[in-house]
């Protein structure tokens, strides 16, 4: 592998549970975090619903994988968790409704972060 750290961003655009994309995206984030690269995660569109507090999928017999977001920055080597402000607003989700400490930033600013990346992984 090359010397300089690669800047890679997971772009999470789907809601949890209805599809498996967010769950398998998290599995990839955890794995990626152990390779000492520069990994960030952006939640846009329905992806912001993954961060909503109080999820309890036990009634539908599904594992609550989103708890992982609580520890992603601390226990794993994820550089940034960005959430797009406009997507939150459109969906009526407030910052205090979010389950993890994240950076809420406007779309235009997130686009600038995207421009710095080498690779985008949409989920």
């Amino acid at each position, binding site marked *: 592998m090359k010397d300089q750290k690669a800047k890679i961003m997971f772009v999470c655009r789907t809601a*949890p549970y*209805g599809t498996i994309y967010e769950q398998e995206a998290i599995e990839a984030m955890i794995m990626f975090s152990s390779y000492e690269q520069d990994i960030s995660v952006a939640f846009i569109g*329905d992806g912001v*619903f993954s961060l909503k507090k109080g999820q309890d999928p036990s*009634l539908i017999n599904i594992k609550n994988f989103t708890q992982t977001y609580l520890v992603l920055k601390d226990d794993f080597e994820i550089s940034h968790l960005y959430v797009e402000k406009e997507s939150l607003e*459109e*969906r*009526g989700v407030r910052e205090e409704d979010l389950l993890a400490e994240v950076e809420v930033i406007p779309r235009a600013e997130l686009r600038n972060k995207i421009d710095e990346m080498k690779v985008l992984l949409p989920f």
Partner: protein
Amino acid sequence: MLNIIKKSPYESSALSDCLKYIKSGDVILFTEDGIYAVKKEGAFGKLVSDASQTCAVYYLFPDAEARGIKSEEVISLAKPVDYKGFVDLVGDSLKSMTW
């Protein structure tokens, strides 16, 4: 007719396609990612409240709980059902359409 909507209204046309076809006396049930349509604060709460003038509107409570949408966050005109209520809704309508 029972109309079932299981996709997010933010990313799929399922809700808007359904609303073009509903008739007075129809029932709409929101399940899975369709749940986000009955959230009071959000882009579709008003639209679905309006639809409830024509149709009875229900949402699958376990799917809302899964997504952290508490009953107080749901538009007042949408009624919660559990899976048994879901079964009753299917039985009560002569047929169902999943959008």
